């Protein structure tokens, strides 16, 4: 009947930006990032990675409503950094971590694959 289309959960509508950014009007070095069509998968890893940055005073994310397919990431940093810098840094670090993990995993798969072959699997 009036159910939203299933693809609306992950297809960014035309004319909408994937990531938008709004600075806090009252606090310096505080901002909210709205990420369209993302959920806890991205929200939680970005938040936890931001917590590793000592210049980040506050980092949190929320999924405002289960039928609004977006997350809001809020970041507050010290004067040595800025929310955009911390956000970019977090994503770059996560990307590098996954690069490393992918190589480590592939090496381990070929090692175990060879061991299995020797055992006659």
């Amino acid at each position, binding site marked *: 009947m009036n159910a939203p289309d*299933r*693809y609306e*959960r*992950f*297809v960014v509508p035309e004319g909408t*930006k*994937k*990531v*938008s*950014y709004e*600075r806090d009007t009252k606090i310096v*070095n505080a901002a909210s*990032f709205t*990420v369209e069509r*993302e959920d*806890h*998968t*991205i929200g*939680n*890893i*970005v*938040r*936890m*990675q931001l917590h*590793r*940055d000592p210049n980040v005073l506050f980092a949190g994310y929320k999924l405002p409503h289960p039928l609004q397919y977006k997350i809001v990431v809020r970041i507050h*940093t010290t*004067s*040595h*950094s*800025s*929310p*955009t*810098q911390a*956000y*970019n*840094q*977090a*994503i*770059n*670090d*996560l*990307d*590098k*971590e*996954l*690069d*490393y*993990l*992918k190589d*480590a*995993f*592939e090496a*381990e*798969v070929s*090692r*175990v*694959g060879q061991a*299995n072959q020797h055992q006659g*699997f």
Partner: protein
Amino acid sequence: MEDTVSYQRLPKVRIREMRDDFMKFELRETDASMANALRRVMIAEVPTVAIDLVEISVNSSVLNDEFIAHRLGLIPLTSDNAMEMRFSRDCDSCDGDGQCEYCSVEFHLSAKCESDQTLDVTSADLHSVDHRVVPVDVQKAFDSDGYDPNQRGILIVKLRRGQELKLRAIARKGIGKDHAKWSPAATVTFMYEPQIHINEELMETLTFEEKESLVDSSPTKVFSIDPDTQQVVVMDAEAYTYDEEVIKKAESMGKPGLVEIYAKEDSFIFTVESTGAIKAPQLVINAIKVLQQKLDAVRLQDDNNFNELDAHLGGS
């Protein structure tokens, strides 16, 4: 600006068991958010191919058309090349109507029962135009040397004399978030690695009967008693389900701190079971790739001209 600093981690992996449809591995030196992101991506965002559109020309079976279409959708298809395929909504060489090799695979099924015995229509009767995309059990029968007569595909419908089923189906690339039929994962779980400490000094004050009742208090077989030394030993730490029954038992015996169990917060044990659409090790690799693509997509775009302004306000 401190562009050279990095808070990146270097996770470690150790595979314990690896088969095509199952694997168990340890993931260390990262946190629960990363483990959970990988789990979520494996279940809902690694693409596979599944039947999405069915045109039925003849159906005189006992099941109605939409019932059969639904059953066809749930048949896992080999999706090794799904990562390279296009989603039909992004495909510019067709309208996603199945006329294009980049985003769809066509299947045909034609079966009629001519005898008095019921005819089983199975996934083995589905004929694909692309040999790379076939029902998983068909691929399995093809790979193994001997043909197993008991293994004749996934049952779709049974026909009696005179009944007929004829259809054309289009398989498309999709993700589990859209519909569970596209999920390559049967189950993906991870647990924290438990660390169990037994206070040996306090344990020595227990009688053999008390030790036995302590061992038996755990609903899973975590502890056992060494028959030679009569000491309580950890038999299988990973059997522990974080139920805290042994800890409660120790307290009720008036011996708090007899057993202490911690979850190692940076160490996870994953189990991955695949439907067969993608082999389990490849499923994990695809999940890592998909997560990287997702991260790339949420990077701030350059047209956000706040960077300069921020630098001024940041005072760096």
